[in-house]
């Protein structure tokens, strides 16, 4: 039985790619972040949680997904922080994200960028699904 929400690595010759699915757009964002961190081989150090609050401006769902992942990736590089819990508040084309996570203990791979290549969030019987390619 397939989980209602999840992620799976898919083949790409040079870069890395994920298939993600979820019943809602916020949950799709969470799965994308989890999948991206799994691809990076990130291990968090369980200690007191650190919080980050940020705003994402977007024009459509694909744009929201790329901007959200780019933002959480930025905290990996700048603050060495892996965010794994998210609360979303939506106002028109702006999403406020309250996120928390742990300092990074180890990381295997750094992603250069989140791309728009063939990115399309599709409506499915169970919600939403997309494929996303990362430049590494």
């Amino acid at each position: 039985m397939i989980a209602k929400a999840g992620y799976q690595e898919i083949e790409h010759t040079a870069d890395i790619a994920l298939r993600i699915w979820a019943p809602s757009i916020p949950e799709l964002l969470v799965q994308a972040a989890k999948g991206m961190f799994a691809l990076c081989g990130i291990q968090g150090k369980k200690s007191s949680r650190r919080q980050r609050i940020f705003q994402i401006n977007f024009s459509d769902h694909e744009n929201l997904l790329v901007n959200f992942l780019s933002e959480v990736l930025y905290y990996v590089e700048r603050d060495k922080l892996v965010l794994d819990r998210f609360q979303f508040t939506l106002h028109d084309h702006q999403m406020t994200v309250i996120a928390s996570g742990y300092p990074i203990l180890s990381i295997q791979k750094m992603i250069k960028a989140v791309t728009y290549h063939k990115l399309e969030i599709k409506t499915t019987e169970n919600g939403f699904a997309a494929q996303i390619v990362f430049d590494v």
Partner: protein
Amino acid sequence: MVNISDFKKISDFEWEIPQNVHPDMKVPVRIFATRRLLEKVFDDESIQQAINSATLPGLVGRVLVMPDMHQGYGFPIGGVAATRYPEGVISPGGIGYDINCGVRLLSSNISFEQAEPFLDALANALDYYCPSGVGKGGHIKLSEKELDQVCTEGSRWASKKGYAQAHDLERTEEKGRMEGADPSAVSKRARQRGLDQIGTLGAGNHFLEVDLIEQVFDQSAATVMGLFEGNLAVQIHCGSRGFGHQICSDYVEEFQGAVKRYGIKLPDRELVCAPLTSPEGQRYLKAMRCAANYAFTNRQILTYYARRAFEEVLAGKVSNWELDQVYDIAHNMGKIEVHEINGEKIKVCVHRKGATRAFGPGNPEIPPEYQPIGQPVLVPGSMGTASWVLLGTEESMKRSFGSTCHGAGRMMSRSQAKKKIWGEDLRNQLQSRGIRIRAGSLSGLSEEAPEAYKDVDDVVQTVVGAGIARKVARLVPLIVVKG
């Protein structure tokens, strides 16, 4: 879906996808490949990506694809596309996130026999001085003012600070500094990422190698370049690090709106572009040139530290431990150049994504000592295999916008490579062949295994067969430092 029967065979090394294969194509696609190499790329999406790239507004001539082609995102890796200046467009995705990713080659007078007892120590010193791997900062932290100077002055900044030798800059594409860079076009976030990453290799397929010059094919050209069989040489492969990645991300984002404003319809959002003369296009060019200058400076600083490692380990033990710059090339770049198309000289913006500039003899853009022979082209192979030094030709000027291949080209995904190859086994196997590996991550090592790449000799044979490069020397690795 295109298949091989849609291709027109031009020669044993060239194939063309006619413009009528897709109604939105503005120009045909020309692929430099043998039939065997061409058949391999049908396993991924490179062909479709090349066709998609041919839909960009303002293209001239043909979209070209090199034999090391493989699937990228938007453009295929190995792609070259020229848009008419000023009416055409510029596409950040056609240059790539790692703006001015490139290769530098240094020659030496150190023979393998002299160096062999010290290779382990040299590997350790290079690993220390030339940081590689995820999240590793460098030995230099830039101030905000210094970052501005790096953006506008490129390798000249490094030279003023004492990080360069006499003819390093002369022997760098663009002399290590692109005109028209403007830091005001760079975001605060890109700046923040750029402050502590200068002088670092990064991860992925980036590396520093000490090589043995195994075979020379053109004695007189090799002599001009200071390359002699049996001597050591050094290759440095890296780019503009997080600074360039952020600049590309920022403009791919900004151009999502620009394509709507300018009524540009594209088959893939990663191909987003803006007219070269538009405010958005101009700002991207200014920012891209900042990243290009950052990357030139990055390789210059790594060169300084590689020299320091050589001196520390070899001074007093060999007679001459100097490293002399042969050349430094970019293989992810957008450049305004003049090319002859159908007998007419046209100013164009050449996008090279995973393709190397390969100007022929006599071109004023190349150093005077190389004008009789053509521009050196540096083609690193996959880890543990050969690399090549080639030269640009008159044919590359006529047929490929002065461009040729940039490497071996992947053919196996990273996840497949990790499943098939154990990093530790690979390291042991390479070490048993006398190659010293200093790698930050064993899984990263398995992803870059030679089996994951095409045979670089086949790729080189193809560009030579097509006439868009000629052979000078083949190098084999002795030390590999990578993330």
